[in-house]
């Protein structure tokens, strides 16, 4: 656990925006397993929400339902006021506005780093090559991998790959970024370089949903911590309050296990 002690939102914007992502009474089953139970969650524009909880609590599934990589059984999800459409062209358009960063990076293995960041701009946003390449290089510089632009993903370290993946998502100018355990597959010494990029994004006012086990990040970058267990949201609170004085027994139990060892 990397404890980064930074004062939250160094001059960054307060989460006062209008609702951007709204989950209303969402339920989902995997066979007999009720992975999401009556989930109500509203994420405001500019807000950074960190979702934590024990394994199997449904937090990754929750994250993946927001861009419909997982479908839900009942309930509704709206993004910027529009309900998630069925699979098809309209859903593709909506996904372009929702950036996603995966635990296992999922960079396109047969394309160079630069091509990875350009692809969506060319094929989805229909930009011309020069504009796309320029933006891609700018983003790669911003996440600190500008010198790796012409390499293939397999030639990069995990931390570098994940930063490229963040650049790839940012290239679409997303309204919200979803992070599904972005540092869980990384060697310990590479975790901070990814968290630093995410910290910067949070400070720049990006709306973020972050599923993570990095409590340091939750403390320093989150506006709100959502604690999940057994498919339910047990508790939501401002991070300081959550970590120093959790209300639910389930959260107390969870924190006592992860913070004292």
């Amino acid at each position, binding site marked *: 656990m990397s404890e980064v002690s930074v004062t939250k939102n160094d001059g960054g914007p307060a989460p006062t925006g209008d609702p951007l992502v709204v989950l209303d009474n969402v339920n989902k089953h995997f066979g007999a397993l009720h992975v999401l139970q009556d989930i109500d969650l509203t994420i405001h524009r500019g807000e950074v929400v960190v979702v934590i909880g024990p394994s199997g609590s449904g937090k990754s599934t929750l994250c993946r339902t927001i861009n419909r990589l997982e479908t839900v059984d009942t309930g509704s999800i709206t993004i910027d006021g529009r309900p998630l459409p069925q699979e098809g062209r309209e859903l593709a358009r909506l*996904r372009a506005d929702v950036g996603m960063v995966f635990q296992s990076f999922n960079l396109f293995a047969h394309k160079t780093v630069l091509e990875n960041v350009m692809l969506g701009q060319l094929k989805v946003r229909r930009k011309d090559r020069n504009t796309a390449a320029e933006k891609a290089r700018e983003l790669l510089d911003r996440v600190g991998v500008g010198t790796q632009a012409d390499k293939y993903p397999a030639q990069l370290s995990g931390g570098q790959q994940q930063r490229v993946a963040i650049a790839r998502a940012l290239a679409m100018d997303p309204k919200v970024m979803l992070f599904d355990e972005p540092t869980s597959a990384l060697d310990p010494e590479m975790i901070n370089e990814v968290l630093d990029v995410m910290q910067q994004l949070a400070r720049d006012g990006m709306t973020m949903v972050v599923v993570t086990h990095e409590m340091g990040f939750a403390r320093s970058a989150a506006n709100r911590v959502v604690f999940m267990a057994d498919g339910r949201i047990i508790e939501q609170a401002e991070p300081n309050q959550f970590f120093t004085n959790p209300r639910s027994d389930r959260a107390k139990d969870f924190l006592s296990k992860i913070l004292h060892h």
Partner: protein
Amino acid sequence: MNVLLDYLPEFRAGFLGTLAITAASAVIALVLGVLIAGFRVSPIPPLRAFGTAWVTLLRNTPLTLLFLIAFFVVPKILFQGASPFVLGMLALGLYTSSFVCEAIRSGISTVPVGQAEAARSIGLSFTQTLRLIVLPQATRTVLPPLSSIFIALTKNSAVAGAFSVTELFGYAKLLSDKGYAIAVIFLWVALAYLLITFAISGVFRLLERRMGVAR
């Protein structure tokens, strides 16, 4: 032994005929095979059902039966007056497309799911995801089975000879009907087939090597 030299033009015509019908059917099989493989992994159920039906029907029917249908049933309904070459090409091409489809589908399933998820998460459509991300990465795994399928196609084209398509095997039969020693005739025929099948293996070995470097 003279039969080999005396009938050289016939052998050459047969060789070119085999080459032509193999190449034409291979193109049909490849195009349809990729398309049907796309259907089989599509999120749209009717397309998936169509793909499954296509493969089940064509893969499990004896090739000779398909030729019989192509030559005696199909011209009654459509393609009236089509040449034996076109009908033979269709029968061979469609038959082989079912095998190509399955080889490609097996290649698609070797590409990690995360690749397609990442592609969809940046807003690519299903078709774009398949064309730009999944198929290019599947190509390398698909090459060895494809090579076998095309070699099998070359040899299957002999069936077309029995349906008055100008090709190697048809000429071999013609000459042996005239009373020439069959063993000698087969020497040229075998050599000609080897020429084509070795060329196919060579091309695929080259492709494999090139793809190996590109990654």
